[in-house]
């Protein structure tokens, strides 16, 4: 009997609490609140958003999750989404949204700030930071000279079973697209075939590839440079077994961009524009340089120390968010049994 009363009390309390939770989270849709979907880590972007809030007085409701999940969410929500701005970790996601007619045009004064090749071709989104494709190599087993400076060498026998990459990852697939454009379809197909036959270590994402190199399970990993720096910040650069090699001039060294888009429903929203403008402002760009070691895309802001200059890295001038093209790259990977 006592147990039953207890359960009833708990149930009532629960209902009340749940309603309270519901209450707190009713989306307040006034001009002073901005809802942003952030496909990046809260620890990194959070402080930047706080800076924005302090400067503009606009309250930001930020929803954090991984870019693929947020993209799927936005696609599912369609035009009923409560989001007003989407900060994405890769361009493909932004392209998918653009293809689905869910984004509004970025005002030209903002879009023009970023050079071609690192932003959208139709102003559907704007690039914010850049990440170079690099080879992470096992510093204990290899010296930098032993590591190839072109991805073409990776199909060689000496690297059999030693190369880790994430075939399902958007930035890897952008790289494949770049390979097709720069070296031609046949060469790219041959490369993919060669890699598939060379006993690759397939992973779910760039971080997992880096982990394999860091623990000696693989000698080489194809990742974005930014992951190495993030890992180093956690465990200390001197404790990193993996080291980085950049590939200027090679398709394997292209720059992937992170970007932001304004969702269609917020096309005229001042707060949304202000936020996107903030992201490509010098202040925010410097923040990214210092905190995440990513390349700034705003001309005039210095790249992080020790990194090769961005214009030495090849970007083929092809819209990296072009999904059709990425779709063909995926087909190539699928045909070789990699995805």
């Amino acid at each position: 009997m006592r147990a039953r009363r207890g359960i009833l009390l708990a149930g009532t309390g629960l209902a009340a609490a749940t309603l309270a939770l519901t209450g707190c989270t009713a989306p307040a849709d006034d001009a002073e609140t901005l809802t942003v979907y952030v496909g990046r880590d809260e620890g990194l972007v959070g402080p930047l958003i706080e800076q924005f809030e302090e400067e503009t007085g606009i309250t930001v409701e930020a929803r954090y999750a991984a870019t693929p999940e947020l993209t799927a969410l936005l696609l599912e929500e369609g035009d009923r989404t409560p989001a007003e701005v989407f900060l994405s970790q890769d361009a493909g996601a932004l392209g998918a949204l653009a293809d689905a007619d869910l984004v509004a045009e970025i005002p030209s004064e903002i879009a023009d700030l970023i050079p071609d090749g690192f932003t959208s071709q139709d102003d559907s989104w704007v690039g914010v930071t850049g990440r170079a494709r690099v080879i992470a190599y096992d510093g204990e087993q290899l010296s930098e000279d032993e590591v190839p400076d072109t991805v073409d060498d990776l199909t060689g026998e000496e690297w059999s079973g030693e190369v880790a990459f994430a075939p399902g990852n958007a930035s890897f697939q952008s790289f494949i697209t770049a390979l097709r454009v720069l070296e031609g379809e046949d060469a790219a197909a041959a490369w993919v075939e060669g890699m598939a036959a060379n006993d690759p270590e397939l992973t779910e994402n760039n971080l997992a590839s880096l982990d394999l190199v860091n623990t000696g399970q693989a000698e080489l990993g194809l990742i974005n440079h930014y992951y190495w720096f993030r890992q180093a910040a956690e465990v200390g650069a001197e404790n990193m077994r993996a080291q980085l090699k950049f590939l200027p001039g090679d398709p394997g060294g292209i720059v992937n961009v992170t970007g932001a888009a304004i969702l269609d429903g917020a096309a005229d929203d001042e707060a949304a524009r202000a936020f996107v403008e903030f992201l490509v402002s010098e202040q925010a760009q410097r923040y990214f340089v210092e905190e995440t070691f990513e390349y700034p895309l705003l001309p005039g802001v210095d790249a992080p120390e020790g990194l090769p200059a961005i214009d030495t890295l090849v970007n083929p001038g092809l819209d990296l968010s072009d999904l059709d093209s990425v779709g063909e790259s995926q087909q190539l990977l699928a045909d070789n049994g990699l995805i």
Partner: protein
Amino acid sequence: MTDRVATPSPRRPWGLIAASLVAVALAAIPVVHLVVRVLSADPAELAAVFDRPRIPLLVGNSVLLAASVTVTAVALGVPSAFLLARARLRWRGAWAVLAALPLAMPSYLAAYGWLAWQPSMKGFWAAWLVLSFVSVPYVTLPVAAALRIGSTGLDDVARTLGRGPFGSFMLGTWPQIRPAVLAGALLVCLYTLSDFGGVALFRFPVLTTAIQQAYSASFSRDEAAVLAVLLVGLALLVVIGEQVARGRAARRIQAAPTAGRRRMTRLGPWTAPGLLLLALVPAVAVVVPVAVLLSRVLTAETLQAFDGANLAQAIGNTVLLSAGGAVVAVALALPIGVLAARHRGRMVRGIESSGYLALGLPGIVVGLSLVFFSLSVVPALYQTALVLAFGYGILFMPKAIGSIRSATGQVPTSLEDVSRTLGNSRARTWWSVTARLARPGIFAAALLAAVSAMKELPATLMLRPTGTDTLAVELWQRTDISAYGAAAPYAVALLLVAAVPAFLLSDARAGREATREVIAPETRAGREATREAIA
């Protein structure tokens, strides 16, 4: 009594069927959403998905992993249950708690811990190891419960007929526990089919990893839907298989709560291997990963960024949301469980099976379908705690069904008959008699749903109110960027919070009671049933 078998059942319980259909319809939202998406997609695109050379490998791997994990979980779980319920064991209560502990461990966390210790773990064997040991409690708990109320009378008679200990176990006890074993195996199989986190960390390609890839690379929800439909198909086969296997089984054995003698076995030379088994499961599933994670804390730099208030908030959110989810899960599962316990027939079986289907789906699929559903039907509630709790309810309703079904099934219908003839309506009889006596089972169903909700990640990411994070979400956000130090407190908090329902489920008290031999006056009917069963 042949008279009873020939008796036609009373008229169809339409009220119960209607309530069950509503529950099933709600639980079927993800499947319906999938099917609609597949049907409205471009057929050429869909065909292309099936043409991919990797598809057979993915399907084969999914099946292989699910089958091997299920077999292993049963092989470990049944002896463990026997040791807990039927063997003379010291510190039985403590062993019972340890046996239930893996319930609190999410598969991705266990995989994470093991990988941190043994980075070379990859592929099938690693996934098999971690998933098997983490899901053993799904078999151990119901089988131990069945053993505690069963009797060894039939075993003893079989011994006198010349069967050895194992043979008499198979003849006497196995039929009594078979439904429990099947129910546990079903849950393990579906759980393995739908698991993403643990399997992905070991880089074993299965359908769920391919679905995730479809979302993250091509942003093609159609392709993901096709793969998910494949997965649902596999899940359907599993569910039907369990129905078939169960259907022939224990109709004859009517569970009599006070029936017969239960003899406790002395372990003798089997003591050491038995204790080893009981220690091995929690060791592999919980102790190793936790120890590794804690050791990482010492070497991490991000530990100082510890925010106690945030942790407290996350704990509160986790508890409240999972409790809400448990309430919904039990509410949905009740009509189905009662229906399945009391009635037979194809319709009942069909209803029960449909309830289980969503369990075979990865969380991201369920999450997205509920996004669509809630935006379409109750947009004002979108991204609120209510919808998330509802999502948990749908996701974990199948886990509640089994417990409710068996608890209700153990309430003899003669009690209900008596209550009705004493003047109580069907509804009042159900509340005052059946539900009252099945209360422990219903409570267990709620606990099981709650502990599952605490660990859930992908649907939570989709549906949670912006700014409301559970422990699982916080944990994931940190491990995703290798911030082990910052992740550790959340991991520990999650384990501790989830250990509470796991502890309650372990029925430690019942474990202690079982050490006293239970001898009830053996009735003539009992003896006759024994003779009949042996004949």
